[in-house]
């Protein structure tokens, strides 16, 4: 309904334009207005008229006394963009245009941080993109400095700054060496936005197992499995034990529980038992005392 | 006998009614048409029936001595035929309550017809239905009953429209049996045959258990056309030619197989009867017989070719070459007695006891032999794989057709004999025979009707409304779906949902290679088709991306391992967790299949106009009153039996 009304008004304005041009008199409009700020429009002439301010998604209608100043309160015009002012009098129509720009003061940030989960110790593994908006959700196109800060786990806090281009700023950061949650904060002036990211252990770097007899079978168990930074791989990580013996082989995929993987395997003298997780291969045991 | 007398009174009141009212005159005209050459005994006839018990009813061959003997047995003094109104009343009493209870909705195919009708309801001139098999053409199935269903549904909804159309078919069957029987036996026996059709096990089985609307709709049209065929070939009456021709075409528009096979099982015996009777009364020469037979065959053939043109085009371009699907009606009923019960005992019912009589009487009376042979052939083919006859006679069609329709036709062909048997028994055993026959008919009908309860199409009765709602919301219908373990509920679901499926119940219409190459039936019942069914299911799930198949609704957890190992994930539950919804990631939305099978617009126009038009034309033609006949009837002497019989024939 609103758009239909806007369309009608637009049509009215376009129709009235040639007529208006034929009239004498003028409107004194500001060149630019900051979104949300107060401003005024000076009219000339005598009598009553109606002033229409038509912009994207917003129309303001005021009855005015010609020759007086029409004042607009803060917040009357909130959306940035190009506005048309049309003064419709009894015998004449005047018009003009002005721009509403976003407020200089950032009011809100839209912050896209990716990924939400990543391995530790990755160079440029984290990306952050910020869109800077004013208090009225207008994209602030003026160049603004954005600061990014990654903190939360043991290790140095990383800080980067970036300037916005056309309202957007971005950066890349390294993931820390310690697993855990990190806070990724983007800040412009008083406006800040925080995302929580999870740093998880990387590829295993340390995988060792031991074996001992368990009745008729062999109990094999890994030491706590860690990545190259000493982070323990999380429970549920699959560890594959493979036992090769004369003429046969046994395999079992075991999830880590409390940091270690353990299982029972058949006990064959001279059997070779190996352990792997993912594409990382751990140590190998030859059952029968050799190692 | 009180009933018979009462019915006589009833008949008199109709025929002697003197209220000069247009509507009543129309009804009288209609009843006169129903009489079709004297279905209702006129006053004079009734009088003669009383005083001349040897007068035949409509039997066209009064000089046949054997026939006379037989008829003399059957028409006893004071025993007239049961009026047709009483027969219709019996149909009302027996079938109307069952239909109002919507009992056929539990049958195998009722929802299939409703689904087709729902498409015609919304897309009368567009036979391409995208809801099954990712799109299929409804020109692959003659449309007449479904189109009538769609029309009537505008008044009373789809379900009740189905019941209404089915009920009309039941009434037409009684009429058709009456008229067909009168070619072979006397009026009294024909009336018993028509009454038996109301209780006929095969009819009840097809209506309430199988849900074969098309077959049960086409057969009455065909039976009603046959007397016209006889009259045209025997007497050369053009009106009969037109009426019979129109009815034949309408029958074909209802069910092509009925016309195709009915030609051999029903029409050939009738033509043979013309030859048997050619020397009596108005003689018909062999050339005239050949010309008349040939002309009606040619004209009807041409008309059927035009009326069902899109059907033939579809059949010629895309013949049914898919791997045959096993059907229990093709079983050997001795090796598989459970199917023998289903496809022989239930449809035949007490008729099994009449088989010796049919063989003996059919063999002993020469003019009944064509009918006997027609019955025998239909009987043997209807036994499915119990004998090799079906396979020998039908060839590859044996693996495509289902055999219960042959049993149905066999029982229809047997009804004139049943009428004879009834008259014989009643004449001999009086009330005891009436009681026995009533019990036999009642039990036969009851068994066949209740069979849908004892052997339901779906063991688990459940509603699919929740599934339809789920599909219709949140854009789920942008993707295709398939159900598993839904049985014939997939037709009902297809009526209710906007979404398209890759499955369906019309096997001859499907074109997806995954479905046609293995020999399984509906995917939803894959497990019952053994390895071929499961191979087809696996193939279609394998190509889910190709068809935009994102949703699988599982009622039967038997299928879960295939879904789990095939990469489908359970995403929702419906109906108190008795139905699970499975989904596959990364499936693109379904796009309309641009199949070459999509009929062009002109075929859609033909399909929307000609079949229904043929039935309306037939209706108009047969309702034209037989004024000339009645005038003749008044002026002609009524003393000679021969004349009387010929007049009756000249309807």
């Amino acid at each position, binding site marked *: 309904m609103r758009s239909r009304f806007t369309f009608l008004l637009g049509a009215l304005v376009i129709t009235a334009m040639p007529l208006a041009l034929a009239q004498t008199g003028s409107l004194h409009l500001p060149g630019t207005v900051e979104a949300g700020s107060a401003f005024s429009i000076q009219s000339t002439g005598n009598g009553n008229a109606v002033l229409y301010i038509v912009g994207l998604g917003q129309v303001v209608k005021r009855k005015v006394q010609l020759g007086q100043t029409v004042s607009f309160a803060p917040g009357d015009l909130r959306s940035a963009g190009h506005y048309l002012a049309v003064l419709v009098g009894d015998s004449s129509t005047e018009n003009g245009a002005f721009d509403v720009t976003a407020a200089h003061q950032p009011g809100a940030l839209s912050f*896209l941080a*990716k*990924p*939400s*989960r990543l391995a530790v110790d990755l160079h440029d593994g984290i990306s952050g993109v910020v869109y800077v908006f004013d208090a009225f959700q207008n994209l602030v196109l003026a160049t603004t400095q954005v600061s990014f800060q990654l903190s939360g786990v043991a290790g140095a806090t990383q800080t980067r700054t970036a300037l916005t281009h056309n309202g957007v700023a971005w950066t890349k950061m390294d993931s820390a060496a310690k697993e855990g949650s990190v806070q990724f904060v983007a800040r412009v002036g008083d406006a800040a*936005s925080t*995302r929580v990211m999870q740093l*998880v252990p990387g590829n295993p770097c340390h995988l060792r197992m031991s074996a001992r007899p368990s009745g008729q079978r062999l109990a094999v168990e890994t030491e706590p499995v860690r990545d190259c930074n000493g982070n323990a*791989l999380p*429970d*549920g*990580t*699959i560890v594959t034990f*493979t036992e090769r013996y004369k*003429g*046969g*082989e*046994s*395999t*079992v*995929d*075991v*999830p880590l*529980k409390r940091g270690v993987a353990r*299982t029972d*395997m058949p006990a064959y003298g001279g059997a070779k038992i190996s352990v792997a997780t*993912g594409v990382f291969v751990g140590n190998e045991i030859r059952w029968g005392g050799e190692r | 006998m009180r009933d018979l007398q009462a019915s006589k009174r009833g008949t008199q009141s109709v025929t002697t009614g003197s209220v000069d009212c247009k509507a009543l005159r129309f009804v009288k005209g209609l009843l006169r048409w129903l009489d079709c050459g004297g279905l209702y005994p006129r006053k004079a006839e009734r009088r003669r029936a009383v005083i001349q018990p040897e007068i035949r009813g409509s039997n066209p061959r009064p000089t046949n001595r054997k026939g006379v003997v037989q008829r003399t047995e059957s028409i006893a003094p004071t025993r007239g035929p049961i009026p047709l109104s009483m027969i219709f009343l019996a149909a009302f009493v027996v079938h109307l309550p069952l239909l109002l209870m919507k009992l056929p909705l539990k049958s195998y195919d009722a929802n299939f017809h409703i689904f087709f009708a729902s498409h015609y309801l919304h897309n009368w001139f567009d036979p391409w239905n995208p809801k099954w098999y990712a799109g299929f053409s409804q020109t692959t199935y003659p449309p007449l009953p479904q189109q009538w269903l769609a029309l009537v549904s505008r008044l009373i909804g789809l379900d009740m429209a189905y019941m209404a159309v089915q009920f009309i078919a039941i009434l037409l069957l009684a009429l058709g049996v009456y008229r067909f029987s009168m070619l072979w036996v006397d009026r009294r026996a024909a009336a018993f045959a028509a009454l038996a059709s109301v209780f006929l096990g095969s009819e009840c089985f097809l209506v309430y258990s199988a849900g074969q609307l098309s077959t049960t709709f086409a057969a009455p049209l065909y039976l009603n056309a046959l007397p016209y065929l006889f009259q045209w070939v025997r007497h050369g009456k053009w009106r009969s030619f037109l009426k019979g021709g129109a009815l034949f075409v309408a029958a074909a528009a209802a069910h092509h197989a009925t016309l195709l096979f009915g030609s051999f099982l029903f029409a050939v015996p009738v033509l043979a009867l013309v030859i048997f009777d050619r020397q009596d009364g108005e003689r018909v020469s062999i050339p005239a017989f050949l010309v008349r037979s040939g002309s009606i065959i040619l004209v009807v053939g041409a008309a059927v070719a035009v009326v069902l043109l899109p059907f033939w085009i579809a059949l010629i371009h895309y013949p049914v070459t898919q791997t045959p699907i*096993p*059907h*229990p009606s093709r*079983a*050997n009923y001795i*090796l*598989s007695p459970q199917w023998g019960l289903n496809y022989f005992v239930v449809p035949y019912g007490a008729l099994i006891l009449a088989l010796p009589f049919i*063989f003996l009487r059919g*063999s*002993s009376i020469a003019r009944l032999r064509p009918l006997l042979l027609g019955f025998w052939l239909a009987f*043997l083919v209807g*036994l499915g*794989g*119990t004998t*090799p*006859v079906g396979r020998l006679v039908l060839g590859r069609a*044996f*693996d495509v057709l289902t055999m219960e329709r042959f049993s149905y036709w066999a029982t229809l062909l047997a009804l004139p004999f049943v009428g004879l048997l009834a008259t014989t028994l009643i004449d001999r055993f009086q009330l005891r025979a009436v009681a026995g026959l009533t019990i036999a008919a009642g039990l036969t009908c009851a068994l066949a009707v209740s069979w849908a309860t004892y052997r339901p199409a779906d063991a688990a009765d459940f509603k699919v409304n929740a599934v339809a709602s789920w599909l219709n919301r949140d854009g789920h219908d942008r993707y295709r779906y398939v159900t598993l373990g839904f049985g014939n509920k997939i037709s009902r679901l297809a009526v209710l949902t906007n979404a398209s499926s890759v499955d369906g119940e019309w096997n001859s219409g499907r074109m997806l290679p995954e479905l046609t190459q293995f020999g399984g039936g509906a995917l939803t019942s894959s*497990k019952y088709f*053994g*390895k071929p069914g*499961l191979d087809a299911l696996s193939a279609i799930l394998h190509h889910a*991306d190709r068809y935009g198949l994102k949703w699988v609704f599982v009622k039967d*957890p*038997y*299928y*879960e*391992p*295939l879904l*789990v*190992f*095939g990469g489908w994930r359970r995403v929702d539950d419906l109906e108190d967790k008795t139905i699970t919804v499975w989904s596959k990631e*990364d499936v693109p939305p379904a796009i309309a299949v641009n199949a070459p099978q999509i009929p062009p617009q002109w075929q859609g126009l033909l399909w929307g106009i000609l079949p229904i038009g043929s039935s309306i034309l037939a209706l108009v033609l047969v309702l034209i009153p037989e004024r000339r006949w009645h005038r003749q009837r008044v002026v002609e002497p009524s003393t000679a039996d021969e004349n009387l019989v010929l007049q009756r024939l000249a309807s």
Partner: protein
Amino acid sequence: MSRIGRLLAIVITAATVALIVVGTIWPVPSAVAMAGSGATLLRPSSSPQAAVENLAAEIGQQAWEKAYSSLANKSEFTELEFARDLTGTYPSLRTYATLDSFDLRPLHASADEAQVQLKLRWSTVVGAFLDTRTLRVVRTGDRWGVLWPIVKEPRVPPQVIPVNYLRWDVIYRGPEDDWGSQDVEAPHVRIVDMHPVDRSAGVVIMGELLNEDVVPAFVTVKATLLAKNGSAIATEDSFDKISHILLPKQVTPFLIRFQNVALSEVDSVHMEPSASLIAASADPVIEIEDQHFNPAPGAALSGKLVNQSGQVVSVAHVLGTFYDKSGQLVWVADQYVDRALLPQTPVSFAMSIPADIASKVSSERAITTAYSSGRFQ
């Protein structure tokens, strides 16, 4: 009745009876299909083959009572044990399998005893499996009876098994969340090996996929064959030739078949692995014991599955990856196990490998996936 009439009645009646007899003794294929494997009237067990044939037909009809009563060694086990040998005690693929076909091969015969190999081809929801039994058949009077080699499925004794499993759950973004709140990251997976092969039936693409992440992933692999002009020849996915649920650091083989495409037509292959978050459990843990690679002829990888968890596994799927001496992937095979996996109870499997591939195989690796459900019927 006239003579012709009488004759006609006799002829029709006799012909009807004769046709029914013919149709029953030599049933048409559709009748055979409907009656199952026992479509012929059972012959008297007057020969070892006839006895085994009758037994197989009765098994096909699931006429356990009849089949059991025909056995020569029925005193050694109950009818229930016999039925459970064929259908399984616990829900499994066997439970609802239907006998697709059977064939038998006489091994040797004497006057009073014979040995016959019976191959039963069962059809299941995930494909067919073969059950081969070598049967001793003994003469008892003028009849032959089968000595059924019963396989008694062990019963799990009543016990309490502590459950200490790992499980992942996923909380997705709700509809009320603002657009800046992102969903949990999809698992990171990587194809670590990929190898197209030209086979007679078409092109086969096989490879291995690794879950690099610390969360379980639901994975699929799609491949598109591209022609020299860049157009797509065909797109297929791995369907069940992959383990769709990959736990952290788990590797699955995959195999994608393209029917009726020659490798010479293919310029490049576009691989599209996809992974999504899934709630998963680390249980059950299944050990593969005693893996043996048996070279051609009859090349197969055999072994035993041992369920190390307390949960009964209804259906297990074994995927085998085969490598040559240089460690290059040469084949991927799979096998469904038809019996349920009971806790700590070994169940055998054997997956066949094409003879031409078998000669190249130097090492192999097997993994299992499992389906357990109380709802499975």
